[in-house]
């Protein structure tokens, strides 16, 4: 405040390649959420540039950002963030509504996505009729329905027991194997360990950026 400007991110120089599985670690206040928002095109940096594929995101307006998020980025949240009134299929269809796909196509894409996360028989269930793990799988289905290039997972296992968490990580791993870039934010070492690259952050700076040989 005042003269003491707080920098959420400071002097970040980072590039992520297509097909990477990057885990970002850090305590709260480390700037990992802000970095994630910028990578996910939810926010633009106050100074500096961010390029996503062929776009200089720093210069885009809110409509263009929305379009990018819609077409190329899928989000998986800690608390699933499903719309409670909509059933699984309708939740998955949501991003396809905004991209203007026709009814038949988007329903098919939604069912395919749900099938690929093993929820073919839960298509018409509403979030409150599903377990936490199932809800997270619906949200993964929502993230992949529009065939994005990048999936951003913000503590995807944070609200799940460890067994279910592992199932979710396996799904993300499989998606990465199919060529989708994954950026994962977590504070758990064994979850971060799924990444092929681990970035540790502190006070808005990158503390450590290393290849993960265990993977």
């Amino acid at each position, binding site marked *: 405040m005042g003269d003491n400007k707080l920098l959420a991110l400071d002097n970040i120089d980072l590039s992520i390649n297509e097909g990477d599985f990057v885990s970002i670690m850090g305590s709260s206040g480390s700037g990992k959420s802000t970095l994630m928002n910028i990578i996910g095109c939810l926010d633009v940096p106050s100074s500096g540039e961010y390029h996503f594929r062929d776009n200089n995101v720093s210069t885009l307006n809110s*409509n263009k950002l929305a379009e990018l998020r819609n077409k190329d980025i899928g989000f998986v949240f800690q608390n699933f*963030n499903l719309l409670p009134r909509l059933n699984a299929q309708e939740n998955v269809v949501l991003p396809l509504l905004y*991209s*203007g796909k026709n009814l038949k196509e988007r329903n098919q894409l939604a069912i395919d996505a749900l099938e690929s996360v093993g929820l073919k028989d839960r298509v018409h269930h509403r979030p409150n009729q599903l377990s936490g793990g199932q809800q997270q799988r619906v949200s993964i289905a929502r993230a992949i329905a*529009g065939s994005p290039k990048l999936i951003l997972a913000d503590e995807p296992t944070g609200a799940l027991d460890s067994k279910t968490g592992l199932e979710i990580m396996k799904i993300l791993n499989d998606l990465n194997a199919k060529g989708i870039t994954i950026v994962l934010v977590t504070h758990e070492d064994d979850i971060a360990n799924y990444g092929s690259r681990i970035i540790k952050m502190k006070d808005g700076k990158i503390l450590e950026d290393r290849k993960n040989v265990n993977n």
Partner: protein
Amino acid sequence: MSITDLIYLSQKSLRSNILRSILTSLGIIIGVSSVITMISIGSGARIEVEQQIERFGSNNLIVRSQSSSNRGVSMGANSVNTLTLKDMEALKEELPAIKAIAPRVSLSTQIVANGNNWLATVTGTTNDYFDLGNWKFENGRSFEEEELASGSRVAIIGKTVQKNLFDTDSPIDEVIRINKVPFTVIGLLDAKGGTAWADLDDTVIVPLKTAKQRLVAKKFPGDQIRSMTINVRSSDLLFKTEKDVDTVMRKLHKISANGNPDFVIRNYAQFLNARQESSRVMSILLATVAGISLIVGGIGIMNIMLVTVTERTKEIGVCMSVGAKKRDILLQFLIESLMISLIGGLIGIALGLGVIFGVSEYFKWKMSLDYMSIVLSFVFSSSIGIIFGFYPARKAANLNPIDALRYE
């Protein structure tokens, strides 16, 4: 995002809060039903006035004799018929604004024909009576000059008399007995229908001279008549002529300007004006109710939509994160408030129709359902929804996706 998708999403969220949605639209319900009732009362009155003109003719004054009291002493029943044919001629002569005058004598009596018996009002008059009273002939003809001059026993009857004496058979050339005097039916009048106080079709019309000689010689001796219908050349002259007739009649009957007249002038326009005026007052009242409740209803919608936007902040963030543009969010909330107001509009229309039915059944007050009023109600309620829904919708659309996602 297509409009049907928007509507689908909107109804999902409205249905999850169905009671709230209906309560929110209460103001619109009252407003719209008032609008519909108001318009119906207005057009009902207009139609009634048109029908009255259709029935009684326009621009007519009716002058009737009335028992007068002279210096505090009632002149008694015999003095009732103070109008004469001389008065009629004098009026015609003195007042150029008068186009025609139809004199009238009348009695209520038994009509016998075809073995049937019927009590009807018999009128003795001239051919002007048909034009002035807007009577049309279903069958047959009016009187010939010769019949009027010689006092022929010919009669023209109304639909009610026909029905009771001849059922559906043609009465033309049949003989009816009025007070035992045989008359030949030469015409049948078109039906006019009833008013609240009289069946206009329950009538038999004979030449004035015939009536005076054979039916009412005692009741209307000499050139006395019961009443006359004065037709004025134009409606602008109606009220002035009413005053002039009063002046001339007072002069003829030697009654001072502030004395009690022995006649009364009825002006239908006066009655119609009063009718229109009372429905106008009613309409203004309803318009006020409608206006206030539409505004209050609109504010109610705005209020609930603001609550909804706050409640669903996180959801808005989710939609934005999966690619909703500002415009998508704006439209979704606009459509939601539009739907609330349209639901209110629909219920209001139903309620308004109920009120219209109830009032016209109960009070026998003529109300006419105007389809324009339904269209108008839709326009009203949807514009309320859009106008008052815009601010909350814009607020939703301008949310920052990160803040919205973080909102708990």
